[in-house]
């Protein structure tokens, strides 16, 4: 490609010289030995320009194109990486959401279970308390009745003893003794 361009440039540069030479002497280009020198000079100039300007320029351009391509590739890779990371993050967020949902569901279930257990326990405890209170009340009533009966009987007997002590006469003693003697055989 570069060679074609160089040849073309040479021919283009040669054409006006030839034209001028053909028109007569005394022009810019004379068809004589100097033409050869000029052509050599021109060739050397081309060669020098090609060496010093064209090749570094092309090299730079290629280098630049390469750098741009590399940058483009890197950008593409970065974009792909970013996309991958975005997807990864999205997946992680999705997983976290799912896990949170599962934890919430488990917590709700556990809370419901705990609530049910507490209610059951409270109900059982309440039942026990009621039963205990009822038994205690029954016991208290029974004890109170017993104490009342005991007190009443003590009182009745104390009164009876006082009345008997005051009212017993000798004949009463004799009768009591006789009755007790009569009961001896029955007792034995």
């Amino acid at each position: 490609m570069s060679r074609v361009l160089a040849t073309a440039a040479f021919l283009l540069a040669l054409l006006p010289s030839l034209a001028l030479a053909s028109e007569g002497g005394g022009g810019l280009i004379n068809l004589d030995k100097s033409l050869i020198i000029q052509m050599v000079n021109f060739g050397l100039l081309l060669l020098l320009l090609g060496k010093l300007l064209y090749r570094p320029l092309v090299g730079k351009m290629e280098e630049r194109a390469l750098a741009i391509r590399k940058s483009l590739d890197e950008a593409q890779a970065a974009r792909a990486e970013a996309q991958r990371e975005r997807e990864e993050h999205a997946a992680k967020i999705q997983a976290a959401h799912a896990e949170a949902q599962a934890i919430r569901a488990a917590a709700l279930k556990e809370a419901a279970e705990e609530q049910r257990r507490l209610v059951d326990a409270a109900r059982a405890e309440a039942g026990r308390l009621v039963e205990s209170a009822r038994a205690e009340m029954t016991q208290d009533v029974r004890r109170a009745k017993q104490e009342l009966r005991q007190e009443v009987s003590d009182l009745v007997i104390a009164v009876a003893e006082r009345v008997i002590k005051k009212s017993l006469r000798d004949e009463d003693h004799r009768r009591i003794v006789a009755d007790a003697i009569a009961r001896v055989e029955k007792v034995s």
Partner: protein
Amino acid sequence: MRAREGTARRYAKALHMIALESGAAPAVGQELAAFLGVLTAEPEARDALTRPWIKAGDRRSIAVAVARKAGCGKLVQDFLGLVADRGRMDHLPEIVPAYQALVDEDLGQARAQVRSAVALTDEEKRQLGARLERALGKRILLEEHVDSTLLGGFVAQVGSLILDGSLDGQLARMRERLARG
């Protein structure tokens, strides 16, 4: 208390065996009771016979002298001397009834301790004795004393058998029935 009764019974049994050989068991019982009566009436004599710091020989001499004065025979004098010598005179209140129980058993009789609110008449004693003899199949010796804490009637005890014919007993039973409802 149980050990004390056991000791008293051993002494009573020993005396009873010797008294049986001599054929004077009931008389020995009466002499013992008389000696016990003297000791009860004379606290000084009882103290002298039960104090541990008085020499055993002296206690023996005192017991023999008191027994002689109370009209006890040689056997009872020797027995009481031995009891005093061994320092067991404080057991005498248990020895005497234990001995009498052995004699009563020999004679097929039993003693009825009767506590009564008022003194029983002779007729009442006779009737009670007869009833107890019929019930127990033994001759009964009534030992009665008046207990002013009783309201009326009597309580008779023959060995472990207690016959409660008192108003107090009836009232106690009535109290129990009332308390039970």
